[in-house]
């Protein structure tokens, strides 16, 4: 049997019951339930699809000028792959490159993507699909829209959300980072790239 005073020799003092110093004041005992306050967890951006928003997705376009890029891209239709091309190589792939503007887009589910829309060609002509898409992208800077192809019409139909939907929550990142993630394996920087060599008929 242990000594009776084994617990604490200091259990001797009467409680301090001064007014305003109540150890049982429940308001002082309440612990924070905001578990994220000290957590330091941030969602990592590891995938950014390069595609137009789905026909069921209501989406918004980032309104910032720095959040879009006018460039040329290479589309491999069969593989459904889109490549970003270093400007130094633009002259080496005549007829393969398409001028596009890449918009930063987010849908209601919080999926971030780059939306490539074709720009007018060298002749300055713009087909109806691309014209409507550009117009829709401009609308989407201010309101939630949905884009659905109407084949008989020969153009997209644009649906605007009539309800008062909250503004999008853009992730804490930069456009450069979004580009880097979107094209991490699909950025052609050298003429030795297998895709370039294949298009030249070298392999």
């Amino acid at each position, binding site marked *: *049997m*242990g000594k*009776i*005073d*084994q*617990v*604490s020799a*200091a*259990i*001797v*003092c*009467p*409680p*301090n*019951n*001064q007014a305003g*110093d*109540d*150890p*049982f004041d*429940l*308001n002082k*005992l*309440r*612990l924070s*339930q*905001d*578990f*994220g306050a000290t*957590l330091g*967890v941030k969602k990592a951006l590891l995938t950014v699809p390069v595609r137009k928003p789905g026909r069921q997705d209501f989406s918004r376009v980032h309104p910032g000028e720095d959040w879009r890029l006018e460039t040329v891209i290479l589309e491999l239709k069969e593989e459904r792959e889109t490549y970003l091309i270093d400007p130094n190589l633009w002259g080496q792939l005549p007829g393969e490159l398409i001028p596009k503007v890449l918009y930063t887009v987010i849908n*209601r*589910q919080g999926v971030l993507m780059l939306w490539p829309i074709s720009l007018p060609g060298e002749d300055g002509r713009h087909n109806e699909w691309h014209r409507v898409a550009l117009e829709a992208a401009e609308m989407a800077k201010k309101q939630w829209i949905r884009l659905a192809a109407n084949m008989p019409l020969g153009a997209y139909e644009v649906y605007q959300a009539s*309800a008062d939907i*909250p503004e999008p*929550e853009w992730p804490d990142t930069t456009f450069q980072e979004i580009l880097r993630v979107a094209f991490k394996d699909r950025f052609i920087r050298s003429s030795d790239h297998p895709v370039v060599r294949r298009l030249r008929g070298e392999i």
Partner: protein
Amino acid sequence: MQLEPRHFREVWLLDFEFSGSSGERPQPVCLVAWELHSGRRLRLWQDQLLAMKVPPYSLNKDSLLVAYYASSEMGCHLSLGWPMPANLLDLFTEFRNLTNGLTPLCGNGLLGALAWFGLSGVEAAEKETMRQLALRGGPWTREERAALLDYCESDVAALNGLLGKMEGIIDWPRALLRGRYMKAAGQIEYLGTPIDTSALSLLQQHWETIQDDLIQEIDADYQVFDGRTFKMVRFQDYLIRKNIPWPRLESGALDLKDDIFKDMAQAHPQLASLRELRVALSQMRLAELAVGSDGRNRCLLSAFRASTGRNQPSNSRFIFGPSRWLRGLIRPEFGYGLAYLDWSQQEFGIAAALSGDPQMLEAYASGDPYLTFAKQARAVPPDATKQSHPRERDQFKACALAVQYGMGEASLASRIGQPPSFARELLRLHRETYRTFWRWSDRVVDHAMLHGKLWTSFGWTVHTGTNPNPRSLRNFPMQANGAEMLRLACCHAVERGIRVCAPVHDAILIESPLDSLDEAIGTAQQAMADASDTVLGGLRLRSDAKIIRYPDRYQDDRGVKMWSTVGGVLERLGIDNLS
């Protein structure tokens, strides 16, 4: 001021041995108490205890009582007519809090706690022998008395060792808050719930006959029983006849778990009677219902047993066990009334308050969060009412509850009788409408997985352990803070003089003489609102009251049909009825 053990002038470790059969109040047999500072030791036998008008130790604010599972000690105090102590530390609740979510090798009893800290206790076998000796009741021989006192003292010595190990890790002020609940729990266990013992003995006496007749009556609509055996093949045929799709196990067999049956009965109300019959046949162990000679159901509340900190009384001994129709046995005594008080949409309110989601707070404040959710999601017009859009309200209610239970789209679809795509859309709407809540909820899970634990507003902690369940962790703040709220409400109510018969998940059952019933209900509802305010830091949750005045009996809505069916069976058999 930071409360610490040194602030107490006297610290008494105590243990009672007591007798008393199932449902009866504890009858103290002996008491051993040690005072830590002075070294005083008390060994008192029953006759000495009964002669004492006040306890032989101080109960003042500058004293502390320490026990292991203290509601029993409090029951002995009440049996002796002694008051409650100002401060109570229960090392059981503190050991549970320390190891909740982990698996102590030797359990959560005193021996388990001692083993956890590497201390030795009395042999388990000897403990059981001695407990039985006390429970048997007197008279005891001189040797038996000495053995019981020695055994009782060995538990106090063990308690002393345990306190030595735990004093430095106990979160003192919150531990004493838990001790405060154990005082309330002791008083609630002591009071118990009034039972219509005539109806109970009728049911007990004729249960065999009732079962056969019930099957005959209810199964007439289903044709799935063979004698008293539920036949899966016949049930399968019934489902095909009625065109009801049913979830299956991986093996292909119908999944007949009660949870599934419950969901399906909600989606297809024609199955409700069959489900209730299955529950009644499997769970009605009337002989085990703990009813004392004074006609009151009384059993250990098993406070803090659930990982959420909720009470976990025995299903078969507690009148609020799973057979809802049996709650019809609850009946106020002559001249008394009962009130069943439950918080309205408690978990929704907790989620709103803790996450600070403005939309969710607005929905709770509206008084009908489910309809408001449907409005916020623009599924119904702004002027929709419960009457104009009952179906939509039910679906959004099911969705809100599904989120609270961590249900996926398949389970929700089955519950609302809609395809999974419909359920998926509802869940998506919840995520979109209550974004702040979801961000907070994701952080809760992240925190638990990163730091290994979560806690409530007043420090009830769950450890994630080696096999964490993210769904349970996500739900923990709602469930466990709900438990905090119920405990605090019980403390307030009991301390304000309310006769609390039983705590039931998010509700309390109180009783009062009829002439003061309304006043008692007001006081108890105030206690519940105060408790929610304190736990949630400013949000006062509403509560509803179901009032039962003698000679009426309590009825759970979901058990009324079964109760009247059983009553009809008895009447047909010419035995009596349950009115």
